[in-house]
């Protein structure tokens, strides 16, 4: 046992020993800094083979992980956001949208699709953090609402994968009302006794936590995800001292009784399949 112990994870090389990692072929874990081939990393569902760090991924990757043979039909894919408030901060909201669409190749912060998971039907609504911080605006709300209508019509269970900083400020009260809208639709889904599984991933905060993310018949989460209502910085300012270790992690939220289970991404598909099968039998 040495005299000194590293308290922070991931610092293993001194500056002189640092080497550049070539793009594309290799994946360097931002947590433990270990390197694996991109192929191995991809095969392990974008989870670090050494430290189990769950890389932040988007709807494309989740659909590939969840749906059998990556076969799915996308729903309402052509919805884009309006700008009812003609919002402008340092930038116009419309140009922010155009830029995000161009940069991310997405149309908004959520995609919806239906397909089969181990041979059972499932509708998946998956948020994309890459689109304005996965913020919830009118399109996110509308896609969830229409997907729920689809679930009710076809009696298909629903999975929503949350990954969001919360409400989209540029849509102000419209964004706030998406909380009401999605909850209203989820209450309809519940009345029809159709299962809803909520998967909370890193990060899930703000208005998303305070609406559909916490309303699953079963709430599951990926290990280590940040999950909370107020952001950690705000809580820290409120209490005026440092936050306890592990505060607002998935493990913390599980311990306090707001999650049913933490499911590693490598087991996600299998667990979803089992749950769907048990609910159907």
């Amino acid at each position, binding site marked *: 046992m040495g005299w000194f112990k590293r308290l922070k994870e991931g610092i293993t090389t001194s500056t002189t020993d640092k080497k550049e990692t070539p793009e594309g072929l290799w994946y360097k874990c931002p947590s433990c800094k270990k390197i694996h081939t991109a192929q191995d990393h991809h095969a392990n569902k974008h989870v670090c083979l050494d430290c189990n760090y769950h890389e932040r991924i988007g709807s494309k990757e989740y659909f590939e992980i969840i749906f059998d043979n990556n076969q799915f039909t996308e729903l309402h894919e*052509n*919805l*884009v*956001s*309006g*700008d*009812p*408030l003609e*919002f*402008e*901060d*340092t930038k116009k909201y419309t140009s922010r949208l155009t830029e995000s669409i161009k940069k991310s190749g997405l149309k908004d912060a959520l995609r919806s699709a239906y397909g089969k998971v181990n041979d059972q039907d499932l509708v998946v609504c998956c948020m994309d953090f890459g689109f304005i911080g996965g913020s919830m*605006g*009118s399109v996110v*709300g*509308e896609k969830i*609402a229409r997907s729920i209508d689809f679930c009710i019509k076809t009696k298909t269970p629903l999975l929503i994968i949350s990954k969001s900083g919360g*409400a989209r*400020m540029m849509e*102000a*009260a*419209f*964004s*706030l*009302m*998406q*909380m*009401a*809208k999605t*909850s*209203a*639709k*989820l*209450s*309809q889904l*519940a*009345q029809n006794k159709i299962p809803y599984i909520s998967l909370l991933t890193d990060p899930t905060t*703000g*208005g998303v*936590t*305070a*609406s*559909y*993310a*916490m*309303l699953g018949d079963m709430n599951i989460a990926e290990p280590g995800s940040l999950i*909370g*209502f*107020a952001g950690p910085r*705000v*809580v820290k300012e*409120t*209490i005026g001292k440092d*936050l*306890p270790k592990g*505060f*607002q992690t998935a493990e913390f939220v599980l311990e*306090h*009784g*707001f999650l049913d289970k933490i499911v590693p991404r490598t087991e996600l598909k299998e667990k979803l399949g089992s749950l769907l099968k048990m609910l159907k039998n």
Partner: protein
Amino acid sequence: MVFLDFEKPVEELNKELEKLKEVASKSKVDLSKSVTELEEKIQDKIVELYSNLTPWQRVQVSRHPERPYTLAYIDHVSNKSFIELHGDRTVADDKAMVGGWGEIDGQTVMFIGQQKGINTKMRQIRRFGMANPEGYRKALRLMKMAEKFNKPIVTFIDTPGAYPGLEAEERGQGEAIAKNLLEMVQLKVPVICIIIGEGASGGALGIGIGDKVLMLENTWYSVISPESCSSILWRSWNFKERAAEALKLTAEDMSKHGLIDGIIKEPVGGAHRDPQATFETVKQEIKKHLNDLSKISAEERINQRIEKFGAMGVVHELD
């Protein structure tokens, strides 16, 4: 009376008036005519100022320290019949959220609302109207009880947001609010929600799902306060006026965008200049809407609620 910064001209006229009254009381000269004139002038000035408030000024009025809070409204509207009920039956009694039974001219109603403190000590105890999860759970408990006994619900919204504390996170602030949204949509009794001051974010919405959502004239309702919006989008606290404009958070804007169901007029110069008149207007509004809502079946009300909130949002479909 506390004057807001934009009310400077009124404050000065008011000082003049007080001086004049003092002189009048000491001397034998009859100054009543000048006093009346000055009073009229003050009134005209208030009318002028208040006919053209900027969004930020409305935010200021909504936070005026003398503005009436929830319990004052309940006391008047229920003609002091209010019986407060406490506790969420699980963790604690949240003083930032109040609720209980009261009567409006013979009709029993469940009143619920965020409550701000009326002095320094109470402001702390009531956490400036920022409720903890147990506050939202108390509210839900009372709403479910109202549903059980088939009594309508009236909520008063006045909060800078849900409390962002450590314990609040431990006890599931997000879950508490989410649950309220889900349950309020399906309540079988009429629900009227009135924003009487600040309506900030999920903290406000947590008791804000109703058949009729109304805003008093000088209140605001949005996803975030103008100050926080300024700090996040402009990375500085100095853009609160611009943020207030950009957020379109006034009653007028909210009504224009179809996000609320109506605006309740305030006396000239704001609710705090004539609380009694404000209470009376609010009471009449509640009575009118309760009467209208009682004519619709529970099922129809729930469907209309889902339809109303379900239609909120502006999206385009690409070809």
